[in-house]
């Protein structure tokens, strides 16, 4: 139903007050954040410090590198697994799919907790390696621990997105490519990956955004690497450095927003809704 011009006008008049209040509550916090970023002793140069101060800059870079690596690994693992699970019907498939959705139910804190139980100082892997090699393998508090934790909560969501996309792939396209003489590998390269591209891009962007903002996992692991959300938290709480915390938040928000916007323009409008 396209409302007529008259109806639409009536709607606007009715909803104008609501819209105004809504916009105010929406935009006010963000505007406040931007202005606080420029309000400290350093003024606008708080934004500049994000790049010039090695402490903040390294936090920024390591967060981006970590998120990008996690995204890359997640896409590869989930892409293959998702295609496989969609195409093959084997014994235990339903059980596997059900367990896959479990990690979605755990918050980041619990995921961090799990990583410690697995590869922490008293973890399972540590005990096994000590018994085998006389040396404990402890990964939880390094970059590797973060990487594992982030993978753990990224993979299931991407697998489910890929499976949904793979279900919608037009099977006739693959049959057409094969009828023209394409080998299975050529079918994957020329038909399946292009067909999954929107899903891969959008779930990659969401994975990246989630990793950039993950706080609970990193905080629980108490790693030596300070990811950006933790840096923001400690600037704010421990040092009461409001303007720098705000500046870092704005930079983090911008990078994430750009990744999502880029993906949206490349893969269509579903990205934001699923984010």
């Amino acid at each position: 139903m396209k409302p007529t011009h008259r109806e639409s006008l009536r709607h606007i008049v009715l909803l104008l007050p609501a819209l105004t209040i809504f916009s105010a509550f929406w935009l006010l916090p963000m505007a406040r954040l931007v202005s606080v970023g420029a309000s400290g002793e350093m003024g606008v140069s708080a934004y500049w410090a994000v790049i010039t101060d090695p402490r903040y800059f390294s936090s920024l870079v390591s967060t981006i590198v970590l998120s990008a690596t996690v995204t890359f690994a997640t896409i590869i693992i989930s892409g293959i697994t998702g295609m496989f699970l969609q195409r093959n019907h084997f014994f235990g498939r339903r059980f596997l799919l059900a367990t896959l959705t479990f990690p979605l139910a755990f918050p980041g804190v619990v995921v961090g907790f799990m990583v410690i139980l697995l590869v922490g100082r008293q973890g399972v892997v540590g005990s096994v390696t000590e018994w085998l090699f006389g040396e404990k393998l402890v990964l939880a508090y390094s970059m590797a621990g973060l990487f594992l934790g982030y993978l753990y909560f990224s993979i299931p969501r991407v697998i489910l997105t890929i499976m949904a996309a793979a279900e919608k792939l037009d099977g006739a396209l693959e049959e057409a490519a094969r009828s023209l003489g394409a080998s299975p590998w050529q079918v994957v390269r020329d038909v399946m990956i292009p067909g999954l591209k929107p899903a891969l891009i959008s779930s990659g962007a969401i994975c990246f955004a989630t990793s950039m903002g993950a706080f609970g996992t990193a905080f629980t692991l108490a790693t030596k690497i300070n990811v950006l959300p933790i840096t923001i938290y400690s600037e704010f709480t421990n040092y009461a450095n409001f303007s720098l915390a705000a500046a870092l938040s704005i930079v983090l928000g911008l990078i994430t927003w750009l990744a999502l916007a880029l993906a949206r323009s490349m893969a269509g409008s579903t990205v934001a809704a699923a984010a």
Partner: protein
Amino acid sequence: MDNNSGNPAKLNTVGIRLNACGKTFPDGTRALEPVQLEINPGETVVLLGPSGCGKTTMLRIIAGLEQPDAGGQVFFGEQDVTPLPIEQRHVGMVFQSYALFPNMSVAENIAYGLKVRGMAEVEKKQRVVEMLSMMHLESFAERRIDQLSGGQRQRVALARALAVRPRVLLLDEPLTALDAKLRESLRAEIDRLLRSLKITAVYVTHDQSEAMALGDRIAVMEKGRIAQIGSPREIYYRPATRFVADFIGSMNRVQGMVDGESLQLPSGLLRVGPRVSNEVLFRPEDVRIVSNGEAQLQAKIVSAFFLGDHTRLILDVGNEQTITAETVDRREFKPGDIVPIAVDSEAILFLE
């Protein structure tokens, strides 16, 4: 045919033979009873039937997309291709959904089969130009697929399938997704193409007029079996079973008391001929509206549909039996009127 459309002789056309090819799906459904079929080199055979009759399964077995049940064999010429997957059978295939690669241009779609075969760039380009011109697509070479109409898409799909010079062309309801007017013009184009290329073709459809127009022979399929195979005229004029008679065109069925060489009805005597039966069949267009002198039956018009090039009459012939008649008569027929009709005895069929 265009001059640049390639030398048809280059097409390495072969016949197809199916030997006891049945298909049972893992859940136990029998999609196709073991079937025997021989298709001559250069011949177009149409597989015609309602949905679920097994026609698509048969096409997919020929293509190599499905394996026949154990014991079934597919031959292309003298070669047993049963164990070969589709990519090694060298067939061309055209799909109902067009199945064009959306990430490639028209020219790239047509070139795809040549590319995966590793054809040299110059030769490939030339072949693409040939195919574009054959299908009148020259001006669309660089278009994206989503910028094409349905008819153009199907012409690209044909060009892509023919570019690799396949041994056999397989078409799976290629016109079903198009609207009526386009369907008819593309049907004529495909007809011209198949005749001029002299390629062996298997064409699946549920549309009887498509089957009639394109098939050298039509295989009418019912519940996984071939009910009848023959030329369009054989199928239409001498249907082997009631199913075929009803599926191809429409058919009147009249029952009455046998009276000498005629069938007695409340509306008159229908002349049947020496081979008489208490039930006879005839086609609507074989009901002739005649002068009272010639009349066999006096039928009452139940309803009349003016359809432009002809009028369809629903006629009451008594005993609560109605028949359909089609006439090109320009008269205006009114429900309730009585019309004198006759059916030539040669037009009458007997089927149990």
